[in-house]
């Protein structure tokens, strides 16, 4: 059983008078500690794929499973309940302070203000923007906004982080830093699924896939070595 699994997912959107099939029989498995990157051109369906994977957008057919449970059956509570999601364009709604934004998820879950503050600051420190806590979201540059978005998800302790184009609009020199941050989160055991349009997220991924024409190409499941059962060595006693 994979941590996150898309099984035979198809999805179409209405575009003017036409119905466009965006995902076609897409299957994908992501395990804990993996960084999986999906590259696609604009309008390839990469954002749709991620929204479906995070349980935000239900598939037309097929299923999405987190820890073996069908996300469609879990209702709206999936976000923040093991699955974190960062969409594009974080920071556009600019009137809110960073710290308020990061602790909001905790406060909504009934966590005490002091505890929420402490955990929010910890999350901001983890993503490298601890000094931006009093800034307004609208004052952040693209790189800071992505880090804050990651902090918003991290503070809820996700096992899977789904992040849509984390390097989009980020200064060229800072893209590597964002990717390394995500790599380090994966190394800590969080499964990361990201979309990518400029190639930035590919090189440090455990697996890279492409999405074109609704089809996902590449290794859709992790390579896991064969587990061999331990065998007693012939002619040796194991008695202590």
């Amino acid at each position, binding site marked *: 059983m994979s941590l996150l699994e898309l099984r035979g997912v198809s999805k179409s959107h209405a575009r003017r008078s036409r119905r*466009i*099939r965006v995902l076609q029989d897409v299957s994908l498995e992501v395990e804990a500690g993996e960084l999986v990157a999906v*590259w696609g*051109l604009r*309008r*390839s*369906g990469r954002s749709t794929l991620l929204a479906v994977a995070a349980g935000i957008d239900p598939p037309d057919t097929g299923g999405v499973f987190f820890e073996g449970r069908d996300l469609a059956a879990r209702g709206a509570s999936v976000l923040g309940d093991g699955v974190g999601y960062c969409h594009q364009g974080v920071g556009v709604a600019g009137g809110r302070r960073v710290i308020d934004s990061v602790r909001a998820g905790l406060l909504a879950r009934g966590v005490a203000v002091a505890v929420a503050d402490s955990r929010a600051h910890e999350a901001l420190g983890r993503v490298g923007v601890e000094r931006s806590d009093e800034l307004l979201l609208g004052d952040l540059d693209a790189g800071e906004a992505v880090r804050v978005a990651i902090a918003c998800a991290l503070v809820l302790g996700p096992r899977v982080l789904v992040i849509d184009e984390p390097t989009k609009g980020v200064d*060229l020199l800072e*893209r*590597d830093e964002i*990717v*390394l941050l995500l*790599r380090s989160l994966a190394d800590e055991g969080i499964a990361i699924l990201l979309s*990518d*349009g*400029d*190639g*930035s997220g*590919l*090189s*440090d*991924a455990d*697996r*890279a*896939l*492409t999405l*074109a*024409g*609704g089809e996902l*190409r*590449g*290794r859709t499941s992790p390579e896991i070595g064969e587990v061999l059962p331990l065998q007693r060595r012939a002619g040796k006693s194991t008695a202590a």
Partner: protein
Amino acid sequence: MRSSVNWTVLGLVIERASYGWELWTRFERLYGDVLPIGSESNVYGALDALRDRGFIEGVREPRRDGSGANRQPKPHYRATAEGVDAYAAWVIAQAREHNRRSLLFARQLGALAQQPQTALGILERYELACLDDKGAKTPTVSEFPARVVPGLADRLASAYGRSVMAATFGWIDYARREFAALAGRRPRSL
């Protein structure tokens, strides 16, 4: 001089005057994954070839205070002006050759217009191979403690790799639509 190893060693000597063993360790750190040479002796062979062509010249080993004052001095080399000029011409020629080969690949695929399914099969395999390669990993500063500018070469490789990967996958998508149309399968509009 056709050996990539010889030219690459020349680049290292241009970066800073040095000696065999140090050049070997720098070579391994910078190029070990893309240009494996296996043995330190290849670096000494390269130094001989470069010196014979006048691209490098021997210099007195820089004096250091302290220990080792009585040991045999190691032969050090620095690049000549001719060596720097030849190196620049070589790396540019390499990059142009890379571009020419890419164009050749595109044309060779285009020559399969009568066999679109074959071309689609090649594209599929090529894409999967690229996905496995993925380009150069993003370097971390701690991996390059000894360098003047830590990780610069790998940052450049990383930035180059991601640009090439994105362009390659975009091109594969485009080529696939062309051949799908030729094969009579209407390419799906997106």
